[in-house]
């Protein structure tokens, strides 16, 4: 029996209270293409980061060619023969392909004064191309190259060291077209034929069926199973069935009663921002929570900022309470009655060294001060305490700096700020990132409470969240809105809509 290229035994990793990886066993055979599947947070990214030396495992053993390795940084991993191409590879835009491939190891006799010998770079680059034939002109500059050419450059750079036996690709196809994908797959086949094992992350089952020898499914930090494409065909399994486990269920409050919905509060038509999203249309009623699911880069963050006036509207219209609005700044959006709970609360939501009172009142200083501009200090304190109690802030101290609160409680302060701002529409972006499960349930409850009197939009890269909290939902896939053909999306349909742009595969 041959020794596998890579073997992981009982690998675990914790981040604080979160079990990112739990006792993962994994085998990568020599010369195989092995896909990793799983929703965001399933543990596949953590796993490849441990293999590539970015994270250090807490427990477990990793063997390469039967020998145990101990990687503490990416250089260690490369020395052990494991090369990684990140999801968005960092290349130097105005260098040529040759220069990028050998960046940092231009010359064997590297010295401070030894210049870059272009002819040597070219000869070595051409050697590499003759070993792994792929159609690409390495003398062009990166900024003139297409997405797939950049990916190829990044792969050639990664395997430039002759001893590389394992190549890890993090979502290499996420930005590629169908035609480009075939080019990448041909290179992957060539690499496989030369004996290199490839481990790659993807969200698309049809790719797995096309290119992978085997695949493994991650869910909730555990490796659930390893299968072959043949088994999927035989059992007629769907990607959603493979990727999703049990729902969180009880965390989410009850849905709204459709009969109880109020009047139309927000009517968005054909909204566009540059190339990041276009033709986004939806309506929102008082009493309703609308979910928007999209992966990182799908445009959900930009959509929230266009609605909030922080990014320009390039086309389309927004009507709030029947009146056309086009906020040019968050100040105008707030005045119109839109409040954003931003995705990165520490950067976009809070002044960390200031108190809760300061933060809660900041988005509505008109309410917080008399007409001459003097702050109503006792009233502000009293109201801040009331809101702090309403969002169950813990500790219930409104004068200490907000940097002293946990992530979940900081998010509650941002919600309290929204309550003080008294908006008609609340937009939540990634509301529970870094928030523990107890605070999550409270935050979901607060969203439902807000929806009693306002319209609420929840945008998330977590499909369960976007589906679980909302009364209905749509997906953004690479800037394209995917809506249910009739009625509402099921959770599986929403997931497929968001990760492959087509709900009918569910």
């Amino acid at each position, binding site marked *: 029996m041959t020794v596998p290229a890579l073997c992981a035994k009982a690998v675990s990793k914790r981040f604080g209270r979160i079990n990112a990886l739990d006792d993962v066993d994994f085998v990568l055979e020599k010369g195989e293409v092995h896909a990793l599947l799983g929703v965001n947070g399933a543990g596949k990214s953590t796993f490849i980061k441990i293999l590539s030396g970015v994270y250090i495992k807490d427990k477990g053993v990793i063997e390469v060619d039967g020998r145990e390795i101990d990687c503490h940084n990416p250089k260690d991993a490369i020395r052990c023969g494991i090369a990684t191409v990140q999801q968005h590879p960092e290349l130097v835009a105005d260098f040529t392909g040759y220069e990028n491939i050998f960046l940092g190891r231009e010359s064997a006799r590297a010295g401070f004064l030894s210049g870059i010998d272009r002819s040597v770079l070219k000869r070595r680059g051409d050697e590499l191309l003759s070993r792994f034939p792929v159609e690409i002109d390495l003398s062009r500059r990166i900024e003139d190259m297409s997405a797939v050419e950049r990916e190829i450059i990044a792969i050639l750079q990664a395997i430039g060291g002759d001893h590389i036996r394992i190549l890890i690709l993090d979502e290499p196809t996420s930005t590629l077209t169908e035609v480009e994908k075939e080019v990448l797959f041909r290179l992957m086949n060539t690499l496989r034929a030369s004996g290199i094992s490839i481990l790659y992350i993807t969200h698309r089952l049809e790719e797995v069926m096309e290119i992978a020898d085997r695949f493994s499914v991650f869910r909730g930090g555990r490796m659930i199973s390893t299968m072959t494409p043949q088994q999927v065909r035989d059992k007629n399994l769907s990607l959603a069935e493979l990727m999703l486990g049990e729902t969180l269920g009880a965390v989410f409050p009850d849905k709204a009663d459709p009969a109880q919905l109020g009047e139309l509060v927000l009517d968005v038509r054909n909204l566009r921002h540059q190339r990041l999203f276009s033709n986004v249309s939806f309506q929102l009623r008082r009493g309703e929570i609308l979910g928007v699911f999209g992966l990182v880069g799908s445009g959900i963050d930009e959509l929230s900022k266009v609605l909030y006036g922080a990014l320009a509207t390039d086309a389309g219209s927004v009507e709030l309470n029947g009146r056309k609005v086009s906020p040019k700044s*968050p100040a105008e959006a707030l005045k119109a009655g839109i409040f954003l709970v931003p995705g990165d609360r520490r950067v976009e939501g*809070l002044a960390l060294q200031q108190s809760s009172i300061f933060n809660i009142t900041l988005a509505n200083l008109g309410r917080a001060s008399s007409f*001459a501009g003097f702050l109503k200090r006792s009233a502000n304190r009293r109201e801040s305490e009331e809101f702090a109690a309403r969002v169950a802030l813990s500790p219930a101290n409104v004068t200490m700096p907000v940097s002293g609160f946990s992530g979940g409680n900081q998010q509650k302060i941002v919600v309290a700020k929204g309550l003080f701002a008294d908006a008609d529409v609340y937009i939540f972006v990634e509301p529970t990132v870094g928030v523990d499960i107890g605070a999550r349930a409270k935050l979901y409850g607060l969203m439902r409470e807000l929806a009693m009197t306002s319209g609420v939009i929840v945008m998330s890269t977590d499909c369960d969240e976007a589906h679980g909290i909302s009364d209905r939902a749509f997906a953004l896939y690479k800037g394209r809105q995917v809506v249910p053909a009739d009625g509402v999306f099921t959770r599986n349909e929403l997931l497929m809509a968001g990760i492959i742009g087509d709900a009918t595969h569910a």
Partner: protein
Amino acid sequence: MPKHGIVPAGTVRFLAFAALVFIIGAAFTAVEPRFLSTQNISAVTRHMAANGLAALGLTLVVIVRKFDLSFAGTACFSAMTIGFMIAGGHDLWLCIMAGVLAAAIVGAFNGIAISYFGLPDIVTTIATGSIAGGLAFLYSQGRTIFRNFVTSGILDLNDARLFGYSASFFFLIALYAVAWVFMHRTRYGASFHATGENPVSAYFSGVPTRAYTMMAFIICAITSVFAVVLILAESGTADTNKGATLLMPAYAGVFLGAALLGGTSVLATLAGTLLITMLLDGFSLLGVPYYYSDGVVSAILLTGVVLFDARVRQLFSDLASFIQPVTSASEKRS
């Protein structure tokens, strides 16, 4: 933040500041008893008024996390503007308003360039400061202006007394009181603080952060004119170098105060200005040449910046906590 038993950290810092004032005062008095004379205390309060007024506007610029290196040049420009107007026989208040206007234009230029066009603050203000300093020469081709100064009434500003002390000192205290109320009790002060602490979250909270950044530069330029008026009143002449001496004391006041009281604020700047003025005045009383005393003040400014820097303070507190267990362990052994 270190815990000091039941005494709040702010009180500890204030006591430390008071002790420092006492020590500096006692040291100078020991060497030169005239330090405590009425005449000298009067001089200290007068100089403190000029330094403190210059530092007040700068405090706002530092609160919005920017630097203004132009205001020495701006002050020279407004000094010569005022001198030129006085020489022209205009009403004193009109002359001062002209100086304020000249400075405000430079300040507005700084503010617009930095907040609306995103130019780097340090480079921009060095450039505008040089331009303003150059403009100062245009009124008289660089010659000192003193015509009409005696009859204009500006000298009376220097001689005005209240309860036996320079009236300018009371003006300083009054303006700082107004500034404190503005910064800590109004929505505008809250917006300045929000802009400085986290401009992104401030913008997302609807604060017009660019307008506030611009206003900080304008206010900075204007308060430097107040300081210039006091300097003109004291010397009785206007020359192209009249504002240049304000730069170091003002920065030293802001940063030393911030280091002492734990953050940039109106009160911290007042405290820093008091210390700096005592030092400068004490040295000049002892007959130390200005090039030494400027060196000392600059060294103190540097110390203030180092102490104000959070990373450096963290380093010191790490060092302290590292030493603490070692000493308690050695105590156990003995």
